[in-house]
């Protein structure tokens, strides 16, 4: 559906997007992550045809964005960082204009417009001038224009900015619903939002692709290690003495001991050696019962920071090596 190959954008000598290549399939929700200035919005602008790349190709359903731009853009609905709304128009007039420009058949435009107004909750504001709407409602009008005409690809740059918590939940649900019939790409700084909505995640840093995987894979695994959080009835020192020599345990992080004598700790272990049974036996032998135990998944924040940090470090190492030469 979306094939990006060798995508590069340079502003003078500054490379904002550097040789980005990825493919996005049908009917899924893709999260686009990256620190500020990573090139997320630039990449989105290039995918939607708003900005021409310096190098590389973008194909939308087989249509090249540079050569068959008009055809390629037919499949896309886009909400840029700042909603592209005309303040002098009402939401209804604005959406009617977008519908006509998107070449929706004349007889279907009105139905389509009312449908998206209903979905985005702007029906009651349909006859109010956009300049008199709040930031949240403007954002909704922007989302409405993006999904108008049921495009096969919907690209949303920071879609929940300016919305209140209730509206955020509504929009997240809407995104999930759109994701059932269309490919949705979302860029957001709110990582919980990405992990709540997206099936797949793309992380870019300094214009380069540093990770592309399913949310589950990214959040569930990190370098073949697993974290286990435990509550054990017993003294901290005794517990450490009992289990610290078990093969496969990489690190034990004792947290605290409660007044009931329960010690909370986290154990990081090698997934391949899986020492969980040995831990159970050792604690059982010392009469220190396990009250609770569960595999702790890495948060997306940790994964994101880790991956971005690694990319910065490798970049630094490369530039140092080049400087040394």
């Amino acid at each position: 559906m979306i094939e990006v190959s060798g995508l590069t954008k340079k502003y003078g000598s500054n490379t904002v997007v550097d040789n980005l290549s990825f493919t996005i399939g049908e009917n899924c929700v893709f999260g686009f992550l990256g620190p500020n200035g990573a090139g997320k919005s630039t990449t989105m602008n290039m995918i939607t045809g708003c900005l021409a790349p310096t190098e590389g190709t973008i194909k939308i359903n087989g249509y090249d964005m540079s050569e068959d731009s008009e055809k390629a853009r037919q499949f896309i609905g886009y909400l840029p960082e700042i909603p592209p709304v005309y303040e002098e128009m009402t939401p209804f007039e604005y959406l009617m204009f977008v519908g006509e420009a998107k070449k929706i058949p004349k007889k279907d435009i009105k139905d389509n417009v009312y449908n998206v107004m209903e979905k985005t909750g702007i029906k009651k504001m349909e006859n109010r001038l956009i300049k008199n709407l709040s930031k949240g409602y403007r954002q909704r009008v922007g989302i409405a224009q993006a999904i108008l005409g049921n495009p096969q690809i919907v690209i949303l740059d920071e879609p929940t900015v300016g919305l209140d918590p209730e509206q955020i939940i509504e929009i997240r649900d809407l995104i999930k619903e759109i994701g059932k019939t269309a490919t949705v790409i979302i860029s957001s700084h709110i990582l919980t939002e990405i992990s709540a909505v997206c099936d797949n995640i793309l992380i870019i840093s300094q214009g380069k692709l540093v990770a592309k995987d399913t949310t589950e894979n990214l959040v569930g695994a990190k370098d073949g290690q697993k974290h286990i959080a435990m509550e054990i009835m017993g003294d901290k020192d005794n517990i450490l003495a009992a289990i610290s020599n078990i093969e496969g345990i990489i690190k034990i992080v004792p947290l605290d001991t409660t007044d009931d004598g329960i010690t909370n700790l986290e154990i990081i272990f090698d997934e391949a050696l899986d020492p969980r049974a040995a831990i159970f036996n050792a604690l059982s032998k010392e009469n220190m019962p396990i009250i609770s135990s569960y595999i702790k998944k890495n948060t997306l924040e940790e994964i994101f920071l880790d991956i971005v940090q690694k990319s910065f470090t490798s970049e630094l190492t490369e530039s140092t090596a080049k400087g040394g030469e």
Partner: protein
Amino acid sequence: MTAILKKELRIYFSTFTGYLFIAFMLLCGGIFTSFVNLVYYSPNFEYAVRNMTFVLLIAVPLLTMRVFSEEKKQKTEQLLYMLPVSFSRIVMGKFLAIAIIMAIPVIIMAFYPVAFSFFGVVNFKTAYTTLLAFFLLECALCSIGMFASSLTENQLIAAVISFGITLIIYMIPDLSANTSSASSFAVKAFAVIIAVLCVIVFFISKKIKLSLALAVIAEAVLWAVYYFSPAVFAGSFGKFLDIFALFEKIGTFANGICDITIIIYYISITLLFLCFTVQSESKRRWR
């Protein structure tokens, strides 16, 4: 294109810019008609039309300044770029919207000669061909204003650029009359124009070698022609300037001559600047 046209018309009339332009043109038309026709009991409406052309110096830049600069400022240009509509259709839609607004006062003024005909003999052919030329002049100036608006996101700067170009065009007959007809003056003036054009080529293409090569070749040809046949340049700079005297050409129609070449000339200037606008907008995507 129809969607863009309708959207532009809606915005022009919801912001009152459209009403203001129409009212201003009708007011000026009324004042000039009163002075030229009513005060002097003259049935020649074409003279009133010819005399009011300088009003366009202010009216057209004010009408066109927001066309693209406002889209850039409000960040709505991204919407236009991603819609499945080509740049040429976007530019044409916007141009037609302004043309419709400009046509409204012209159509209303077209009734004035009919009113005069009740009190004297009116040469309808001359009156209406002059009015047509006036409208085409408006279109040409509008395309220049649109081009200026595509260069910046500041409406005021767009208006100043448009006004500056229009003012120079308006003053060309005076400039032409006061330039020396000597060959040496003409060749130096052409040399300066070539240098300026090559600087513009450099700013657009950012290719120094190409710009320098063009400058060297063009200057070499110019000075070679001057060396072998200096007489060719006698009075040529004044004639060259006259080519761009858009306002002056309307006088031909007011004098009762319907010159089709001038109509084609106005249409060509309009299309040329609309093409420049399309190129200017397309180029923004590549920045």
